[in-house]
Protein backbone atom coordinates (compact mmCIF):
# COMPACT_ATOMS: atom_id res chain seq x y z
CA UNK A 1 0.00 0.00 0.00
CA UNK A 2 1.58 3.29 -1.01
CA UNK A 3 0.18 6.21 0.89
CA UNK A 4 0.76 9.72 -0.39
CA UNK A 5 0.94 12.13 2.53
CA UNK A 6 3.36 11.67 5.47
CA UNK A 7 0.39 11.53 7.82
CA UNK A 8 -1.19 8.67 5.87
CA UNK A 9 2.11 6.80 5.87
CA UNK A 10 2.35 7.37 9.62
CA UNK A 11 -1.12 5.95 10.11
CA UNK A 12 -0.27 2.89 7.99
CA UNK A 13 2.69 2.17 10.28
CA UNK A 14 0.59 2.80 13.35
CA UNK A 15 -2.09 0.37 12.19
CA UNK A 16 0.44 -2.46 12.12
CA UNK A 17 0.49 -2.53 15.93
CA UNK A 18 -2.88 -3.94 16.94
CA UNK A 19 -2.36 -3.23 20.63
CA UNK A 20 -1.63 0.43 19.96
CA UNK A 21 -4.73 0.73 17.75
CA UNK A 22 -6.87 -0.77 20.51
CA UNK A 23 -5.25 1.61 23.01
CA UNK A 24 -5.96 4.58 20.75
CA UNK A 25 -9.58 3.42 20.45
CA UNK A 26 -9.80 3.19 24.25
CA UNK A 27 -8.38 6.70 24.68
CA UNK A 28 -10.83 8.15 22.14
CA UNK A 29 -13.74 6.25 23.70
CA UNK A 30 -12.85 7.47 27.20
CA UNK A 31 -12.53 11.07 26.03
CA UNK A 32 -15.90 10.87 24.25
CA UNK A 33 -17.56 9.29 27.29
CA UNK A 34 -16.06 11.95 29.53
CA UNK A 35 -17.27 14.71 27.21
CA UNK A 36 -20.75 13.23 27.13
CA UNK A 37 -20.84 12.58 30.89
CA UNK A 38 -23.72 14.99 31.62
CA UNK A 39 -25.80 13.24 28.95
CA UNK A 40 -25.12 9.61 29.81
CA UNK A 41 -24.45 9.60 33.56
CA UNK A 42 -27.47 8.32 35.48
CA UNK A 43 -27.10 11.12 38.04
CA UNK A 44 -25.47 14.53 38.41
CA UNK A 45 -22.97 13.76 41.20
CA UNK A 46 -22.42 17.46 42.04
CA UNK A 47 -26.10 18.18 42.60
CA UNK A 48 -26.37 17.57 46.33
CA UNK A 49 -30.17 17.61 46.12
CA UNK A 50 -30.23 14.35 44.17
CA UNK A 51 -28.11 12.51 46.74
CA UNK A 52 -29.89 10.20 49.16
CA UNK A 53 -27.92 9.46 52.32
CA UNK A 54 -29.68 6.17 52.97
CA UNK A 55 -28.20 4.97 49.69
CA UNK A 56 -24.64 5.62 50.89
CA UNK A 57 -21.90 2.97 50.63
CA UNK A 58 -24.08 0.41 48.87
CA UNK A 59 -22.33 -2.38 46.96
CA UNK A 60 -22.33 -2.64 43.15
CA UNK A 61 -25.67 -3.66 41.64
CA UNK A 62 -27.71 -2.03 44.40
CA UNK A 63 -31.05 -0.64 43.25
CA UNK A 64 -31.31 2.80 44.83
CA UNK A 65 -34.32 4.69 46.10
CA UNK A 66 -34.40 6.68 42.83
CA UNK A 67 -35.25 3.46 41.03
CA UNK A 68 -32.10 2.95 38.97
CA UNK A 69 -29.37 0.42 39.52
CA UNK A 70 -26.00 1.61 40.89
CA UNK A 71 -23.85 -0.69 38.75
CA UNK A 72 -20.65 0.25 40.56
CA UNK A 73 -22.23 0.95 43.96
CA UNK A 74 -22.43 4.28 45.79
CA UNK A 75 -19.93 6.35 47.77
CA UNK A 76 -20.11 7.77 51.30
CA UNK A 77 -22.51 10.56 50.27
CA UNK A 78 -24.83 8.21 48.43
CA UNK A 79 -23.44 9.30 45.08
CA UNK A 80 -23.78 6.89 42.18
CA UNK A 81 -20.19 5.79 41.66
CA UNK A 82 -20.49 5.31 37.91
CA UNK A 83 -21.67 8.91 37.50
CA UNK A 84 -18.95 10.17 39.83
CA UNK A 85 -16.32 8.31 37.79
CA UNK A 86 -17.61 9.73 34.50
CA UNK A 87 -17.51 13.27 35.88
CA UNK A 88 -14.16 12.56 37.56
CA UNK A 89 -12.69 11.42 34.23
CA UNK A 90 -13.87 14.68 32.74
CA UNK A 91 -11.96 16.69 35.33
CA UNK A 92 -8.86 14.51 35.22
CA UNK A 93 -8.63 14.69 31.42
CA UNK A 94 -9.31 18.41 31.40
CA UNK A 95 -6.55 19.10 33.95
CA UNK A 96 -4.14 16.70 32.27
CA UNK A 97 -4.56 18.23 28.82
CA UNK A 98 -4.52 21.84 30.04
CA UNK A 99 -1.37 21.28 32.10
CA UNK A 100 0.23 19.35 29.25
CA UNK A 101 -0.53 22.03 26.64
CA UNK A 102 0.71 24.91 28.79
CA UNK A 103 3.87 23.02 29.77
CA UNK A 104 4.36 22.21 26.08
CA UNK A 105 4.07 25.88 25.13
CA UNK A 106 6.42 27.19 27.81
CA UNK A 107 8.93 24.35 27.56
CA UNK A 108 9.11 24.24 23.75
CA UNK A 109 9.52 28.03 23.54
CA UNK A 110 12.27 28.10 26.18
CA UNK A 111 14.13 25.14 24.70
CA UNK A 112 13.97 26.39 21.12
CA UNK A 113 15.00 29.93 22.01
CA UNK A 114 17.90 28.59 24.07
CA UNK A 115 19.11 26.59 21.08
CA UNK A 116 18.57 29.56 18.74
CA UNK A 117 20.48 32.13 20.76
CA UNK A 118 23.21 29.84 22.05
CA UNK A 119 26.05 31.13 24.24
CA UNK A 120 25.43 32.41 27.74
CA UNK A 121 21.63 32.48 27.48
CA UNK A 122 21.55 28.86 26.36
CA UNK A 123 23.96 27.77 29.09
CA UNK A 124 21.94 29.56 31.77
CA UNK A 125 18.52 28.28 30.67
CA UNK A 126 19.71 24.70 30.24
CA UNK A 127 21.57 24.73 33.55
CA UNK A 128 18.39 25.75 35.36
CA UNK A 129 16.39 23.12 33.54
CA UNK A 130 18.90 20.35 34.26
CA UNK A 131 18.89 21.40 37.88
CA UNK A 132 15.12 21.24 38.00
CA UNK A 133 15.06 17.84 36.33
CA UNK A 134 17.26 16.44 39.08
CA UNK A 135 14.45 17.07 41.58
CA UNK A 136 11.49 14.70 41.54
CA UNK A 137 8.47 16.22 39.81
CA UNK A 138 6.13 15.00 42.53
CA UNK A 139 8.02 16.96 45.18
CA UNK A 140 7.94 20.18 43.18
CA UNK A 141 4.25 19.79 42.51
CA UNK A 142 3.61 18.96 46.15
CA UNK A 143 5.41 22.03 47.45
CA UNK A 144 3.79 24.33 44.90
CA UNK A 145 0.32 22.94 45.50
CA UNK A 146 0.89 23.51 49.22
CA UNK A 147 2.16 27.07 48.76
CA UNK A 148 -0.42 28.15 46.17
CA UNK A 149 -3.45 26.64 47.85
CA UNK A 150 -6.35 24.63 46.48
CA UNK A 151 -8.19 25.09 43.20
CA UNK A 152 -7.85 24.43 39.51
CA UNK A 153 -5.49 27.33 38.73
CA UNK A 154 -2.89 26.56 41.43
CA UNK A 155 -3.08 22.85 40.63
CA UNK A 156 -2.40 23.42 36.93
CA UNK A 157 0.40 25.86 37.80
CA UNK A 158 1.99 23.20 40.00
CA UNK A 159 1.70 20.53 37.30
CA UNK A 160 3.12 22.86 34.63
CA UNK A 161 6.08 23.82 36.81
CA UNK A 162 6.79 20.20 37.48
CA UNK A 163 6.68 19.23 33.79
CA UNK A 164 7.73 22.04 31.47
CA UNK A 165 11.40 21.12 31.93
CA UNK A 166 10.94 17.83 30.07
CA UNK A 167 9.56 19.70 27.06
CA UNK A 168 12.30 22.30 27.27
CA UNK A 169 15.06 19.72 27.23
CA UNK A 170 13.53 17.75 24.37
CA UNK A 171 12.92 20.93 22.35
CA UNK A 172 16.45 22.10 23.05
CA UNK A 173 17.97 18.85 21.84
CA UNK A 174 15.92 18.80 18.64
CA UNK A 175 16.33 22.52 17.95
CA UNK A 176 20.11 22.40 18.44
CA UNK A 177 20.26 19.79 15.69
CA UNK A 178 18.02 21.89 13.41
CA UNK A 179 19.88 25.11 14.17
CA UNK A 180 22.98 24.04 12.26
CA UNK A 181 21.07 22.94 9.15
CA UNK A 182 21.20 24.87 5.90
CA UNK A 183 17.54 25.81 5.72
CA UNK A 184 17.84 27.72 9.00
CA UNK A 185 20.91 29.55 7.69
CA UNK A 186 18.94 30.35 4.56
CA UNK A 187 16.00 31.67 6.56
CA UNK A 188 18.34 33.77 8.69
CA UNK A 189 19.95 35.34 5.65
CA UNK A 190 16.55 36.81 4.72
CA UNK A 191 15.21 39.79 6.69
CA UNK A 192 12.91 37.62 8.81
CA UNK A 193 12.58 38.32 12.52
CA UNK A 194 14.22 35.78 14.85
CA UNK A 195 10.82 35.05 16.32
CA UNK A 196 9.49 34.05 12.95
CA UNK A 197 12.48 31.83 12.23
CA UNK A 198 12.12 30.11 15.61
CA UNK A 199 8.38 29.55 15.47
CA UNK A 200 7.79 29.00 11.75
CA UNK A 201 11.00 27.27 10.68
CA UNK A 202 12.73 25.56 13.59
CA UNK A 203 9.86 24.61 15.89
CA UNK A 204 7.76 22.69 13.30
CA UNK A 205 10.74 20.44 12.65
CA UNK A 206 11.12 19.70 16.36
CA UNK A 207 7.53 18.53 16.66
CA UNK A 208 7.91 14.72 16.42
CA UNK A 209 9.92 14.19 19.63
CA UNK A 210 7.83 16.84 21.39
CA UNK A 211 4.63 14.99 20.54
CA UNK A 212 6.03 11.83 22.11
CA UNK A 213 6.93 13.74 25.28
CA UNK A 214 3.47 15.33 25.25
CA UNK A 215 1.61 11.98 25.28
CA UNK A 216 3.77 10.70 28.12
CA UNK A 217 3.44 13.96 30.05
CA UNK A 218 -0.34 14.12 29.70
CA UNK A 219 -0.53 10.62 31.17
CA UNK A 220 1.90 11.72 33.87
CA UNK A 221 0.01 14.86 34.77
CA UNK A 222 -3.22 12.88 35.05
CA UNK A 223 -1.46 10.49 37.44
CA UNK A 224 0.20 13.37 39.29
CA UNK A 225 -3.09 15.22 39.66
CA UNK A 226 -4.67 12.06 41.06
CA UNK A 227 -1.80 11.66 43.51
CA UNK A 228 -2.01 15.28 44.67
CA UNK A 229 -5.77 15.08 45.05
CA UNK A 230 -5.35 11.83 46.94
CA UNK A 231 -2.99 13.59 49.34
CA UNK A 232 -5.57 16.35 49.77
CA UNK A 233 -3.57 18.99 47.87
CA UNK A 234 -5.50 19.01 44.63
CA UNK A 235 -8.98 20.12 43.73
CA UNK A 236 -11.64 21.23 46.20
CA UNK A 237 -14.01 18.53 47.47
CA UNK A 238 -16.98 19.96 45.58
CA UNK A 239 -15.62 18.68 42.24
CA UNK A 240 -14.11 15.30 42.95
CA UNK A 241 -11.53 14.14 40.39
CA UNK A 242 -10.64 10.45 40.23
CA UNK A 243 -7.87 10.89 42.81
CA UNK A 244 -10.28 12.52 45.24
CA UNK A 245 -12.82 9.71 44.77
CA UNK A 246 -10.12 7.18 45.57
CA UNK A 247 -9.04 9.16 48.63
CA UNK A 248 -12.63 9.42 49.85
CA UNK A 249 -13.08 5.66 49.58
CA UNK A 250 -9.81 4.86 51.34
CA UNK A 251 -11.22 4.98 54.87
CA UNK A 252 -14.06 2.60 53.92
CA UNK A 253 -11.68 0.10 52.39
CA UNK A 254 -10.54 -1.08 55.81
CA UNK A 255 -14.08 -2.25 56.47
CA UNK A 256 -14.19 -4.17 53.19
CA UNK A 257 -16.09 -1.62 51.05
CA UNK A 258 -13.57 -1.85 48.29
CA UNK A 259 -15.63 -0.47 45.38
CA UNK A 260 -15.50 3.21 46.35
CA UNK A 261 -11.72 3.29 45.86
CA UNK A 262 -11.13 0.42 43.45
CA UNK A 263 -13.38 1.36 40.52
CA UNK A 264 -12.20 4.99 40.13
CA UNK A 265 -8.68 3.56 40.26
CA UNK A 266 -9.46 1.07 37.52
CA UNK A 267 -10.81 3.89 35.33
CA UNK A 268 -7.68 5.92 36.00
CA UNK A 269 -5.37 3.02 35.16
CA UNK A 270 -7.16 2.12 31.92
CA UNK A 271 -6.80 5.73 30.82
CA UNK A 272 -3.11 6.03 31.75
CA UNK A 273 -2.07 2.64 30.34
CA UNK A 274 -3.91 3.36 27.07
CA UNK A 275 -2.23 6.76 26.66
CA UNK A 276 1.16 5.22 27.46
CA UNK A 277 0.68 2.43 24.91
CA UNK A 278 -0.19 4.97 22.19
CA UNK A 279 2.83 7.06 23.21
CA UNK A 280 5.14 3.99 23.09
CA UNK A 281 4.03 3.19 19.56
CA UNK A 282 4.52 6.78 18.35
CA UNK A 283 7.96 6.82 19.94
CA UNK A 284 8.96 3.58 18.22
CA UNK A 285 7.74 4.92 14.87
CA UNK A 286 9.64 8.17 15.22
CA UNK A 287 12.84 6.52 16.46
CA UNK A 288 15.18 6.42 13.45
CA UNK A 289 17.29 3.66 15.02
CA UNK A 290 14.35 1.23 14.87
CA UNK A 291 13.41 2.14 11.26
CA UNK A 292 13.70 -0.70 8.81
Amino acid at each position, binding site marked *: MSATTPLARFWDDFRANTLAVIALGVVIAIVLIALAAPLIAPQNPYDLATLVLTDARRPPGFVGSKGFTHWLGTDAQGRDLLSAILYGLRISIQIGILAGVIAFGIGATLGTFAAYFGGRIEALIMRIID*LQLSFPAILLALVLAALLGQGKGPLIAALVTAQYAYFARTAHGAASAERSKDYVEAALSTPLSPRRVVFRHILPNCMPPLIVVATVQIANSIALEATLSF*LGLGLPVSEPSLGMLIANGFQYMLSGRYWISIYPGVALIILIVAINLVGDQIRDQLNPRLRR
Partner: protein
Amino acid sequence: MLGFMIQRLLQALVVMLVISALVFIGVYAVGNPIDVLISPDATQAIREAAIKAYGLDQPLWKQYLDFLARLVRGDFGRSFIYNMPVLDLIASRIPATLELTLVAVLGATFLGVPLGMYAGYRPDSVLAKIIMTVSIFGFSVPTFWIGLVLIFTFAVQLGWLPAGNRGDTATLFGVEWSLLTANGWKHLLLPALNLSLFKFAMMVRLARAGTRETMLTDTVRFARAAGESEFTILRRHVLRLIAIPIVTVFGLEFGSTMAFAVVTETIFSWPGVGKLIIDSISSLDRPVMVAYLMLVAFFFIIINLLVDLSYAALDPRLRTRRAT
Protein backbone atom coordinates in the same frame (compact mmCIF):
# COMPACT_ATOMS: atom_id res chain seq x y z
CA MET B 1 40.56 13.13 39.99
CA LEU B 2 41.15 15.65 42.78
CA GLY B 3 40.60 18.61 40.44
CA PHE B 4 37.40 17.03 39.19
CA MET B 5 36.16 16.53 42.75
CA ILE B 6 36.92 20.12 43.74
CA GLN B 7 35.22 21.45 40.63
CA ARG B 8 32.10 19.41 41.38
CA LEU B 9 32.07 20.43 45.03
CA LEU B 10 32.22 24.11 44.08
CA GLN B 11 29.37 23.62 41.60
CA ALA B 12 27.30 21.95 44.30
CA LEU B 13 27.93 24.87 46.63
CA VAL B 14 26.78 27.38 44.02
CA VAL B 15 23.62 25.39 43.35
CA MET B 16 22.89 25.24 47.07
CA LEU B 17 23.25 29.03 47.31
CA VAL B 18 20.88 29.51 44.37
CA ILE B 19 18.29 27.21 45.91
CA SER B 20 18.52 28.91 49.29
CA ALA B 21 17.91 32.23 47.50
CA LEU B 22 14.87 30.77 45.71
CA VAL B 23 13.43 29.37 48.93
CA PHE B 24 14.14 32.67 50.62
CA ILE B 25 12.32 34.61 47.90
CA GLY B 26 9.48 32.06 47.77
CA VAL B 27 8.75 31.89 51.46
CA TYR B 28 10.28 34.97 53.04
CA ALA B 29 9.84 37.71 50.48
CA VAL B 30 6.62 36.74 48.66
CA GLY B 31 4.73 35.33 51.62
CA ASN B 32 4.59 37.22 54.89
CA PRO B 33 7.83 36.09 56.56
CA ILE B 34 6.54 36.55 60.07
CA ASP B 35 4.06 33.71 59.43
CA VAL B 36 7.00 31.37 59.01
CA LEU B 37 8.68 32.41 62.19
CA ILE B 38 6.00 32.65 64.81
CA SER B 39 2.64 31.03 65.34
CA PRO B 40 -0.32 32.89 63.80
CA ASP B 41 -2.10 33.15 67.15
CA ALA B 42 0.72 35.10 68.82
CA THR B 43 -0.13 38.49 70.33
CA GLN B 44 0.75 41.82 68.67
CA ALA B 45 3.53 42.51 71.17
CA ILE B 46 5.19 39.17 70.49
CA ARG B 47 4.83 39.79 66.75
CA GLU B 48 6.65 43.10 66.93
CA ALA B 49 9.33 41.71 69.19
CA ALA B 50 9.86 38.87 66.70
CA ILE B 51 10.00 41.23 63.72
CA LYS B 52 12.79 43.10 65.49
CA ALA B 53 14.52 39.98 66.73
CA TYR B 54 14.61 38.40 63.28
CA GLY B 55 15.60 41.69 61.65
CA LEU B 56 12.59 41.89 59.33
CA ASP B 57 12.89 45.68 59.38
CA GLN B 58 16.31 45.30 57.71
CA PRO B 59 16.92 45.62 53.93
CA LEU B 60 16.30 42.47 51.89
CA TRP B 61 19.95 41.56 51.16
CA LYS B 62 20.76 41.72 54.86
CA GLN B 63 17.77 39.55 55.68
CA TYR B 64 19.00 37.00 53.16
CA LEU B 65 22.45 36.94 54.77
CA ASP B 66 20.85 36.44 58.18
CA PHE B 67 18.73 33.65 56.72
CA LEU B 68 21.88 31.99 55.37
CA ALA B 69 23.63 32.39 58.70
CA ARG B 70 20.73 30.68 60.47
CA LEU B 71 20.76 27.87 57.89
CA VAL B 72 24.47 27.28 58.40
CA ARG B 73 23.91 27.09 62.15
CA GLY B 74 21.11 24.61 61.52
CA ASP B 75 18.54 26.94 63.08
CA PHE B 76 15.25 26.38 61.26
CA GLY B 77 13.04 27.65 64.06
CA ARG B 78 10.47 25.70 66.06
CA SER B 79 7.52 23.70 64.83
CA PHE B 80 4.18 25.30 65.75
CA ILE B 81 2.48 21.97 66.17
CA TYR B 82 5.10 19.86 67.95
CA ASN B 83 6.73 22.83 69.72
CA MET B 84 10.25 21.51 69.29
CA PRO B 85 13.19 22.57 67.10
CA VAL B 86 12.35 21.69 63.50
CA LEU B 87 15.70 20.08 62.88
CA ASP B 88 15.26 17.68 65.81
CA LEU B 89 11.75 16.90 64.65
CA ILE B 90 12.85 16.02 61.12
CA ALA B 91 15.89 14.11 62.37
CA SER B 92 13.64 11.97 64.56
CA ARG B 93 11.60 10.97 61.50
CA ILE B 94 14.47 10.26 59.12
CA PRO B 95 15.28 6.68 60.25
CA ALA B 96 11.76 5.50 59.40
CA THR B 97 11.96 6.93 55.88
CA LEU B 98 15.51 5.76 55.43
CA GLU B 99 14.83 2.12 56.26
CA LEU B 100 11.70 2.07 54.12
CA THR B 101 13.54 3.56 51.14
CA LEU B 102 16.59 1.33 51.61
CA VAL B 103 14.56 -1.86 51.67
CA ALA B 104 12.51 -0.72 48.67
CA VAL B 105 15.43 0.36 46.48
CA LEU B 106 17.70 -2.55 47.39
CA GLY B 107 14.86 -5.01 46.84
CA ALA B 108 14.00 -3.44 43.50
CA THR B 109 17.64 -3.54 42.37
CA PHE B 110 18.55 -7.04 43.52
CA LEU B 111 15.35 -8.50 42.04
CA GLY B 112 14.98 -6.17 39.06
CA VAL B 113 18.50 -6.37 37.64
CA PRO B 114 18.78 -10.20 37.45
CA LEU B 115 15.22 -10.54 36.15
CA GLY B 116 15.79 -7.77 33.62
CA MET B 117 19.05 -9.37 32.52
CA TYR B 118 17.26 -12.66 32.04
CA ALA B 119 14.52 -10.92 30.05
CA GLY B 120 17.21 -9.38 27.86
CA TYR B 121 19.12 -12.66 27.56
CA ARG B 122 16.10 -14.75 26.55
CA PRO B 123 13.64 -12.10 25.27
CA ASP B 124 11.25 -14.61 23.75
CA SER B 125 10.81 -16.93 26.74
CA VAL B 126 7.56 -17.06 28.66
CA LEU B 127 9.23 -15.92 31.89
CA ALA B 128 10.66 -12.87 30.09
CA LYS B 129 7.20 -11.93 28.86
CA ILE B 130 5.75 -12.28 32.36
CA ILE B 131 8.56 -10.12 33.77
CA MET B 132 7.94 -7.43 31.15
CA THR B 133 4.18 -7.42 31.74
CA VAL B 134 4.70 -6.91 35.45
CA SER B 135 7.13 -4.09 34.73
CA ILE B 136 4.72 -2.29 32.37
CA PHE B 137 2.08 -2.59 35.07
CA GLY B 138 4.46 -1.22 37.70
CA PHE B 139 5.32 1.66 35.39
CA SER B 140 1.81 2.83 34.60
CA VAL B 141 -0.21 2.31 37.74
CA PRO B 142 -0.10 5.16 40.29
CA THR B 143 1.75 4.20 43.47
CA PHE B 144 -1.00 5.28 45.80
CA TRP B 145 -3.59 3.05 44.14
CA ILE B 146 -1.32 -0.01 44.33
CA GLY B 147 -0.89 0.79 48.01
CA LEU B 148 -4.65 0.69 48.48
CA VAL B 149 -4.95 -2.61 46.64
CA LEU B 150 -2.12 -4.09 48.73
CA ILE B 151 -3.81 -3.02 51.96
CA PHE B 152 -7.15 -4.34 50.80
CA THR B 153 -5.70 -7.69 49.71
CA PHE B 154 -3.15 -8.50 52.39
CA ALA B 155 -4.41 -6.56 55.39
CA VAL B 156 -8.20 -6.47 55.04
CA GLN B 157 -9.10 -9.61 53.10
CA LEU B 158 -6.32 -12.07 53.98
CA GLY B 159 -5.31 -10.48 57.28
CA TRP B 160 -1.70 -11.61 56.85
CA LEU B 161 0.03 -8.30 57.31
CA PRO B 162 -0.72 -5.09 59.27
CA ALA B 163 -2.07 -2.08 57.36
CA GLY B 164 -0.04 0.66 58.99
CA ASN B 165 2.50 1.97 61.52
CA ARG B 166 6.02 0.81 62.19
CA GLY B 167 5.34 -1.94 64.68
CA ASP B 168 7.99 -2.86 67.23
CA THR B 169 11.32 -1.14 66.95
CA ALA B 170 14.70 -1.93 68.46
CA THR B 171 17.34 0.64 69.32
CA LEU B 172 20.73 0.70 67.62
CA PHE B 173 23.14 3.65 67.91
CA GLY B 174 20.42 5.50 69.80
CA VAL B 175 18.00 5.26 66.86
CA GLU B 176 14.86 3.15 66.62
CA TRP B 177 14.76 0.69 63.70
CA SER B 178 11.89 -1.51 62.59
CA LEU B 179 14.42 -3.54 60.63
CA LEU B 180 15.67 -5.18 63.81
CA THR B 181 12.47 -6.88 64.95
CA ALA B 182 10.32 -9.55 63.31
CA ASN B 183 7.21 -7.51 64.01
CA GLY B 184 8.85 -4.46 62.46
CA TRP B 185 9.62 -6.42 59.30
CA LYS B 186 6.00 -7.49 59.09
CA HIS B 187 4.97 -3.83 59.16
CA LEU B 188 7.69 -2.85 56.72
CA LEU B 189 6.90 -5.44 54.06
CA LEU B 190 3.78 -3.92 52.45
CA PRO B 191 4.95 -0.29 52.30
CA ALA B 192 8.36 -1.38 50.98
CA LEU B 193 6.70 -3.52 48.30
CA ASN B 194 4.45 -0.61 47.37
CA LEU B 195 7.34 1.81 47.12
CA SER B 196 9.61 -0.58 45.22
CA LEU B 197 7.24 -1.56 42.40
CA PHE B 198 7.98 1.50 40.25
CA LYS B 199 11.73 1.19 40.78
CA PHE B 200 11.55 -2.52 40.10
CA ALA B 201 9.88 -1.82 36.75
CA MET B 202 12.55 0.73 35.94
CA MET B 203 15.44 -1.58 36.87
CA VAL B 204 13.95 -4.40 34.78
CA ARG B 205 13.65 -2.15 31.73
CA LEU B 206 17.17 -0.77 32.11
CA ALA B 207 18.81 -4.15 32.67
CA ARG B 208 16.87 -5.71 29.80
CA ALA B 209 17.74 -2.99 27.30
CA GLY B 210 21.40 -3.02 28.36
CA THR B 211 21.69 -6.79 28.21
CA ARG B 212 20.07 -7.02 24.78
CA GLU B 213 22.55 -4.55 23.38
CA THR B 214 25.58 -6.00 25.14
CA MET B 215 24.82 -9.58 24.08
CA LEU B 216 25.35 -8.53 20.45
CA THR B 217 28.80 -7.01 21.02
CA ASP B 218 32.21 -8.51 20.27
CA THR B 219 32.98 -8.70 23.99
CA VAL B 220 30.43 -11.46 24.39
CA ARG B 221 31.49 -13.18 21.15
CA PHE B 222 35.13 -13.33 22.27
CA ALA B 223 34.18 -14.48 25.76
CA ARG B 224 32.16 -17.30 24.21
CA ALA B 225 35.05 -18.21 21.93
CA ALA B 226 37.28 -18.34 24.99
CA GLY B 227 34.97 -21.02 26.35
CA GLU B 228 33.49 -19.12 29.25
CA SER B 229 30.14 -20.37 30.49
CA GLU B 230 27.05 -18.27 29.72
CA PHE B 231 26.58 -17.50 33.40
CA THR B 232 30.16 -16.26 33.73
CA ILE B 233 29.69 -14.09 30.65
CA LEU B 234 26.55 -12.54 32.09
CA ARG B 235 28.09 -12.00 35.49
CA ARG B 236 31.61 -10.93 34.54
CA HIS B 237 31.09 -9.03 31.30
CA VAL B 238 27.48 -8.03 30.72
CA LEU B 239 26.78 -6.99 34.29
CA ARG B 240 29.90 -4.85 34.36
CA LEU B 241 29.04 -3.14 31.09
CA ILE B 242 25.48 -2.30 32.06
CA ALA B 243 26.56 -1.15 35.53
CA ILE B 244 26.93 2.55 34.69
CA PRO B 245 23.32 3.38 33.84
CA ILE B 246 22.17 1.18 36.70
CA VAL B 247 24.36 2.97 39.23
CA THR B 248 23.14 6.33 37.92
CA VAL B 249 19.54 5.33 38.20
CA PHE B 250 20.19 3.76 41.59
CA GLY B 251 21.58 7.03 42.89
CA LEU B 252 19.04 9.32 41.30
CA GLU B 253 16.17 7.01 42.09
CA PHE B 254 17.21 6.67 45.70
CA GLY B 255 16.47 10.34 46.06
CA SER B 256 13.21 10.29 44.16
CA THR B 257 12.16 7.17 46.08
CA MET B 258 12.57 9.11 49.30
CA ALA B 259 10.39 11.79 47.72
CA PHE B 260 7.81 9.26 46.58
CA ALA B 261 7.80 7.84 50.09
CA VAL B 262 5.50 10.81 50.82
CA VAL B 263 2.70 8.90 49.13
CA THR B 264 3.47 5.48 50.56
CA GLU B 265 3.98 6.83 54.07
CA THR B 266 0.63 8.62 53.95
CA ILE B 267 -1.22 5.48 52.89
CA PHE B 268 0.44 3.17 55.39
CA SER B 269 0.65 5.78 58.20
CA TRP B 270 4.39 5.18 58.25
CA PRO B 271 5.76 7.82 60.64
CA GLY B 272 8.57 9.09 58.40
CA VAL B 273 9.57 12.46 56.96
CA GLY B 274 7.06 12.19 54.12
CA LYS B 275 4.12 11.81 56.47
CA LEU B 276 5.49 14.70 58.51
CA ILE B 277 5.59 17.04 55.52
CA ILE B 278 2.03 16.15 54.46
CA ASP B 279 0.85 16.70 58.03
CA SER B 280 2.70 20.01 58.28
CA ILE B 281 1.28 21.18 54.94
CA SER B 282 -2.26 20.46 56.05
CA SER B 283 -1.68 22.11 59.44
CA LEU B 284 0.26 25.07 57.91
CA ASP B 285 3.34 24.31 60.00
CA ARG B 286 5.54 26.51 57.80
CA PRO B 287 8.91 26.23 59.59
CA VAL B 288 8.77 22.49 58.96
CA MET B 289 7.99 23.09 55.28
CA VAL B 290 10.95 25.47 54.84
CA ALA B 291 13.34 23.14 56.62
CA TYR B 292 12.11 20.15 54.63
CA LEU B 293 12.60 22.01 51.34
CA MET B 294 16.14 23.03 52.19
CA LEU B 295 17.09 19.58 53.46
CA VAL B 296 15.65 17.85 50.39
CA ALA B 297 17.51 20.23 48.11
CA PHE B 298 20.71 19.61 50.04
CA PHE B 299 20.11 15.87 49.88
CA PHE B 300 19.59 15.90 46.12
CA ILE B 301 22.71 17.92 45.51
CA ILE B 302 24.73 15.43 47.55
CA ILE B 303 23.22 12.54 45.59
CA ASN B 304 24.03 14.19 42.25
CA LEU B 305 27.55 14.80 43.46
CA LEU B 306 27.99 11.17 44.52
CA VAL B 307 26.61 9.91 41.21
CA ASP B 308 29.04 12.13 39.30
CA LEU B 309 31.94 10.91 41.40
CA SER B 310 31.03 7.23 41.09
CA TYR B 311 30.70 7.76 37.33
CA ALA B 312 34.28 8.92 37.33
CA ALA B 313 35.31 5.92 39.39
CA LEU B 314 33.51 3.45 37.10
CA ASP B 315 34.54 4.96 33.78
CA PRO B 316 38.23 5.90 33.50
CA ARG B 317 37.64 7.75 30.19
CA LEU B 318 35.40 10.26 31.96
CA ARG B 319 37.93 10.75 34.71
CA THR B 320 40.86 11.67 32.49
CA ARG B 321 38.84 13.85 30.13
CA ARG B 322 37.25 15.92 32.85
CA ALA B 323 40.43 16.34 34.82
CA THR B 324 42.38 17.91 31.99
